[in-house]
């Protein structure tokens, strides 16, 4: 795993606390770290160089805001500059008098065909357009068949396949069909081609000239490395791009290619693909990709995911229980299940800034998803009464439960203990608020987890609260990056209940580790 930029800068700046403003030397000291971070995120070198220079200019002389560590302040400057560079507003798809052509180009395996179907679906459903899809890929085996099948799945018309036709002819036929049958948009899915393959690039150019597309989208993989610059430039020169569609953003690539391609072509990233199903397409949010490139985690996505999967009513019910300090096995169970729905503990940890590494550490400590599974089995082997009143559990009952769940009495005991610990933590958390708890967790982890403190500092509970509020109102863009709404910690401000519970859950990992240490 990559060390996140905030961790690195935290180290560099730890000596600088208490200074009035960022001097040139300070900024120089971090510019190398920023450079490496961007390169590790696959931003292309020339783009990185320009960017770092502009950051230096912006940061030198900047007054240090009180209560914020200079590292974070630089990250905020970097983050904002990134957002600005990636384009601050979402760019809409354009239309012209029907039938207008959409041309999809890109390297082999970048996801053109799937993206074609996804965009066609959006055009149909959101923009009420009548769309025809045509595959010009006569090279890859079954490529035309693939688009045809996607058309059948999505209910979107596809051009009849005629064997042996040249791409340009297919494109012309598609436009003719579009005209005759009254289609608004004709989507042309081209074959994958290498940017240095002159013949193939000439073919793309010919198709472009024959159809005069209103949108020419470069489909590019979010995992692309330094080559992104070359590819984007070559395609832009050959066919004149109007925008970029970034695919596989649901992977764990940092997505620096987005920045490279935007920088060299100046063309906006219009859409992102976030899954294999044809509904999994989204408009581009620069701030999220910026956060990802910097390895800051993706709080917004986590909150969104939580909102998607966590049952509100249940969460509220649980929050009330927490406040009273009541917490039984039913609650623990539903918590575990919600966590599983969100992709397991590791997946969630990775989305929290600075906690990516903690996921690994928890795993080492044996707190992983298989443990959750085991514990679920234990709870399932309890009677209803036992689940509600953990105190009922005596030796005999424990033996029965252990036998029923295929575990051992020790494991049952461990779970009981964990529940008690959580009850205690809940009570304490109520008193301390988020920041206090984070510090405590740090203490419990044996001081190893500096990132927790970073997190406690950088997390703005109010900001998160606002995000959740926005979600509750179903108010669209969840924009604010962790820095947008002020910095530092406001003690006492609680997190929304579901996040609170999630964090509560992670704390017992710390406990366990801590205890092991004590024993040694």
């Amino acid at each position, binding site marked *: 795993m990559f060390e996140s930029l905030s961790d690195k800068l935290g180290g560099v700046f730890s000596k600088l606390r208490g200074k009035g403003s960022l001097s040139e030397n300070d900024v120089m000291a971090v510019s190398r770290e920023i450079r490496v971070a961007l390169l*590790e995120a696959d931003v292309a*070198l020339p783009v990185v160089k320009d960017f770092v220079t502009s950051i230096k200019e912006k940061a030198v002389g900047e007054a240090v805001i009180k209560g914020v560590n200079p590292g974070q302040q630089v990250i905020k400057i970097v983050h904002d500059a990134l957002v600005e560079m990636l384009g601050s507003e979402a760019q809409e798809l354009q239309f012209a008098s029907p039938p207008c052509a959409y041309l999809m180009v890109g390297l082999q395996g970048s996801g053109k065909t799937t993206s074609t179907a996804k965009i066609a679906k959006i055009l149909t459903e959101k923009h009420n357009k009548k769309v025809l899809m045509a595959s010009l890929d006569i090279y890859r085996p079954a490529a035309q068949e693939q688009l045809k099948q996607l058309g059948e799945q999505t209910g979107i018309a596809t051009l009849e396949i005629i064997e042996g036709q040249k791409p340009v002819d297919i494109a012309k036929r598609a436009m003719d069909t579009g005209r005759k049958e009254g289609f608004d948009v004709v989507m042309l899915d081209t074959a994958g081609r290498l940017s240095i393959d002159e013949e193939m690039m000439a073919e793309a150019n010919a198709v472009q000239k024959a159809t005069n597309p209103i949108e020419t989208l470069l489909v590019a*993989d979010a995992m692309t490395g*330094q080559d992104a610059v070359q590819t984007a430039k070559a395609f832009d020169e050959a066919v004149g791009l109007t925008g970029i569609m970034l695919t596989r953003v649901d*992977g764990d690539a940092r997505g620096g290619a987005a920045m490279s391609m935007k920088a060299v072509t100046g063309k906006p990233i219009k859409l992102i693909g976030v899954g*294999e199903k044809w509904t999994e397409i989204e408009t581009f949010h620069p701030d999220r990709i910026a956060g990802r490139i910097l390895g800051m985690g993706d709080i917004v996505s986590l909150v969104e995911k939580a909102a998607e999967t966590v049952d509100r009513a249940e969460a509220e019910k649980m929050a009330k229980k927490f406040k009273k300090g009541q917490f039984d096995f039913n609650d623990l169970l539903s918590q575990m299940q919600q966590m599983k729905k969100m992709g397991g503990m590791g997946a969630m940890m990775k989305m929290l800034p600075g906690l990516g590494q903690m996921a690994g550490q928890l795993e080492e400590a044996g707190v992983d998803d298989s443990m959750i599974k085991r514990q679920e089995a234990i709870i399932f082997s309890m009677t209803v009464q036992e689940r509600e009143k953990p105190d009922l559990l005596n030796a005999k009952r424990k033996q029965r439960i252990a036998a029923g769940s295929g575990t051992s009495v*020790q494991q049952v005991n461990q779970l009981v203990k964990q529940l008690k610990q959580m009850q*205690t933590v809940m009570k304490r958390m109520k008193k301390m608020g988020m920041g206090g708890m984070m510090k405590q967790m740090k203490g419990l982890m044996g001081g190893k987890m500096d990132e927790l403190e970073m997190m406690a500092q950088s997390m703005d509970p109010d900001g998160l609260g606002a995000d959740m509020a926005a979600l509750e109102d179903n108010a669209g863009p969840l924009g604010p990056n962790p820095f947008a709404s002020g910095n530092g910690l406001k003690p006492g401000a609680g997190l929304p209940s579901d996040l609170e519970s999630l964090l509560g859950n992670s704390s017992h990992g710390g406990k366990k580790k801590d205890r092991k240490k004590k024993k040694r």
Partner: protein
Amino acid sequence: MVFWRRKKNQKQHEEEQRDDKLLHPEGEPDLELPTEYDAEMDEHTRHEMEETEEEIIEELDEAPVPAHSIEEDAKEAEELSDHTNEGGWLSRLTRGLTKSSNKITKGITDLVTKKKLDQDTLDQLEEVLIEADLGPKTAAKIIDDFAKDRFEKEIDEKEIKTALAGLMSDILAPVAVPLNIEKREDGPFVVLVCGVNGAGKTTTIGKYAYQLRAQGFSVMMAAGDTFRAAAVEQLEEWSKRAGAKFLSKDVGADAAAVAYESYQQAKEQGVDVLLLDTAGRLQNKKNLMEELEKIIRVLKKQNEDIPHATLLVLDATTGQNAFSQLETFKEMVNVTGLIVTKLDGSAKGGVLVGLADQFGMPVHAIGIGEGIEDMQPFRAQDYARSLVGIEF
């Protein structure tokens, strides 16, 4: 004020002590999970894994010398190629690789005629490596090694190229291992092919089957990608081109069932090599990775030794995410080797150097085009030399 705070702290302290007592009463029996138990669980899995690895190593050791040497392969491929497609076999490789080295070469040529090796030059060299996707860390490491005995010394372009190529070749040489396919008594030699979406798995299988056929093996392909539209048709077309047997089930069928059935069929029909295609999956999709694990589980039930090889197909345009890909696939499905595709493009696939350094994972072959013959064994020296632009 101070007094108050102390008092407050004290209260908290007491509270904590009380809680602690509550949680860990004196004379509390040792409820901590006996470490043996954990160890037992883990060890079991670990044991299983280690065993598999050992077996593979053993297999490699005992493997008979392949009937065909690389030279013979080359000759055969040369004979088999129809030459209608511009140029012979070697020139295609050269072309593919020089294409990928164009930029790096230019970069270096710009640098030096003959002068003292200074920090500026080193920085520029480092940048050249970074632009080839070696990644900042690997690039820095190679430049450090390079500068060790050469800093401040007179050096010219050729020396720089040779030395850099040598350094990278040293890292890459141990992983340039062809995949040893052998005819087995107990059934087909099973090769499972996995990778992220769009890496080029199906095309790779097509090319690989063709190569194996040319070497005299009988081959069956199984369409384990039951998810993507027309993936089955795509593989079927390749099977026709390569002259391989083909097995598929309906779209949406369980990929593990395809694996199971294909192994049965291949065994019955006495096929030498079974190539199992799988659906593309991003390494961070847990459920999809588990599906892949399941395929292997199902295979292992029939024969502990299979799959004999699990190949990860890696796109050369991929940047630093390749680390995450290899790490996860290796951990989940015990990848035994890599095939790097799309090296005929402008991407240089320099991430390979870092991968070789960190994982030491064998690189069996590279893909340099969409034609059925466009697959070559990975040769460390050639690759390293072409990366820095030394002509063949």
